[in-house]
């Protein structure tokens, strides 16, 4: 389904989606983040600071509550994610491509019920990047595109005073059908303009990971390379790169005790991060990933070697957040290129 929507009518479209919680990019404290919006939605954002992954995979997920009276059996109460449906507007193609990658992780071997329960209720309304929103965008070199529809339910393209709106999935069709009257049929000129805009978007120069299909083998051959530590020497071991990443999905599970008598608490899943020194710390004090080099290698190789080996595609979608936001200049493009270049 391909339609034209007058830019001024987007608020009416959102108003028509009355059973949906609408998430849109909001500029607050100088950063863009997805937040619930009502009425006016702004789509003039570059990209949000954090990816929208938190809607299906929140930073904190309570699995169950527990309670035990001394001498009695413990009582567990499962906490089930609510059934609220969320439609996220303004999702950039890189973040859209993050969605199927997250789906693979949380569906492979074991189906993650909590993830699935949330995921099925999220619709991603994408916005094509007419030009790269960040100087560190590199989607093209990792198999993506500024006009990719991968992972999206709807793709919108900015045509100046109107949007070209394309339904990608059945969910997307449903979203558009909810306000069918607002949409017009695209004219031949519209179609031509979309093609033109998309062609220009793809032609925009971007930074690039070189020869991404050769990277897995090269990284495999570089496991013991001293380059890792050299490139990671400045790494401070914070969680910025992973927490902002649209595909980083590592988590930790903890019991958080709320009261001792009676014993009460929750089991909770929280995001974790392979760059924290204690991520792989053993209780003996031994740490198999003992330095920043080993930890950076883990993150980079996961994106560019292990994931391709397991699923046949790089996990990285080229959003460039980890590059732009790293406080000390660790640059994943540079790291991959350098290590690959120097591979045996």
């Amino acid at each position, binding site marked *: 389904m391909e339609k034209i929507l007058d830019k001024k009518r987007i608020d009416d479209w959102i108003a028509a989606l009355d059973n949906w919680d609408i998430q849109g990019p909001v500029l607050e404290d100088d950063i863009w983040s997805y937040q619930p919006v009502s009425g006016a939605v702004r789509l003039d954002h570059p990209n949000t600071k954090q990816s929208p992954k938190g809607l299906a995979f929140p930073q904190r997920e309570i699995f169950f509550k527990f309670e035990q009276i001394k001498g009695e059996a413990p009582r567990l109460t499962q906490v089930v994610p609510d059934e609220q449906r969320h439609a996220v507007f303004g999702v950039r193609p890189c973040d859209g491509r993050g969605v199927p990658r997250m789906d693979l992780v949380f569906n492979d071997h074991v189906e993650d019920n909590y993830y699935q329960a949330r995921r099925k209720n999220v619709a991603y309304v994408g916005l094509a990047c007419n030009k790269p929103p960040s100087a560190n965008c590199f989607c093209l070199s990792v198999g993506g595109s500024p006009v990719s529809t991968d992972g999206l339910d709807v793709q919108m393209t900015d045509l100046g005073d109107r949007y070209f709106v394309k339904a990608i999935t059945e969910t997307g069709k449903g979203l558009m059908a909810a306000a069918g009257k607002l949409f017009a049929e695209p004219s031949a000129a519209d179609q031509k303009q979309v093609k033109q805009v998309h062609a220009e978007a793809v032609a925009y120069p971007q930074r690039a990971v070189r020869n991404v299909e050769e990277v897995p083998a090269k990284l495999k051959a570089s496991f013991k390379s001293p380059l890792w530590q050299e490139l990671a020497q400045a790494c401070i071991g914070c969680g*910025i790169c992973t927490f902002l990443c649209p595909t980083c999905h590592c988590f930790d599970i903890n019991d958080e005790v709320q009261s001792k008598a009676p014993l009460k*608490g929750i089991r909770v899943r929280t995001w974790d991060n392979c760059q924290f020194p204690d991520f792989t710390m053993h209780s003996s004090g031994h740490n198999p990933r003992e330095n920043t080099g080993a930890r950076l290698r883990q993150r980079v190789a996961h994106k560019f070697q292990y994931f391709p080996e397991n699923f046949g595609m790089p996990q990285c979608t080229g959003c460039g957040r980890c590059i732009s936001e790293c406080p000390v200049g660790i640059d994943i493009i540079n790291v991959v290129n350098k290590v690959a270049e120097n591979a045996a």
Partner: protein
Amino acid sequence: MINIQDIRETARDMLTKGEVRAVIGYRRGSRGMLAEPTFITSAEQADELVWDPTCFHNLSLYLVHDRKFLAHIRKNAEAPVAIVAKGCDARSIVVLMQEHYFKREDVYIIGVSCEGTGVLDERKLAKHLNGAQASNVAFDGGDFVFTTAEGEKRLPAREVMADRCLECRIPFPREHNIVFGEDKTGRQLEAPFAALTRFEAQGTGARWDFWSHHFDRCIRCFACRSVCPMCYCDECVVDSITFPVTTETTAEDKANRIRWIERSAVRSENITYLMTRAMHLAGRCTDCGECERACPVNVPIRLLNNKMEREAREQFGFEPGASIGGPSLVASFLDRDPGDFIR
């Protein structure tokens, strides 16, 4: 004006003579105009050193990393490490020495004066450039000169400088082995603690509204802790890695363990984390502002540290990083310390 060649020459000379193991400095990074930390070990690399308004980083963090590494491999330092340090960074080094983290002879301080200016605030710059990208930035007297696609753009430094630099009282590394640039102490462009004073003018309710908003936004990536040279504890109170969980561990065992701060990034836990950090930095923070710069969600962390700095100064006459042999704030006292708040 600092001539970068002088810094490079110093580094080259010391590395050639083997006087230092390495020089920790700044180089041009691979992303845009930003400098990044570099660790050079041979004289040939000295030419990569740079000095510009994007040299934000407090490199003394890497002296801490170095110490930890040496302890890990159970080796003693063979030679000192040289480090490029701004005024605030040099004060951090002094605090580390005051806390016996390393000795004076273990480090060779290549001081750089911030002269009339300081480092850039990327957020302020972004507003000025309005979407455009700068590929380079240089000091030029009281101005910063940016190279953009549309040509050269000159901005008065005070419009795009970091708040911490505008308010800096001592933009000069008093502790140094060699120093470049003029000492322009006393040139502060804004009153010390100006941002803090503006904030404190508000009432209790408004302050809580402000902080509860920001405490909610913290994503607990711990960039503030990781980037801070003073956060060198082997185990932070927020991590509970010394408590193994085995199949034998009962819920009651877990309940009896001390967990100061839970992993959940929720308001109560974020507050406990950020407040504890502020307390642990009292009298140690030298206002390098790295925590606030590193924060990906712009939590105004510096205000908390500033508050402690001002209390230390006004109530106890304490100046962090003033002297290597001096006492630490919370392990010392004076008879005249205020006590009128005690019943």
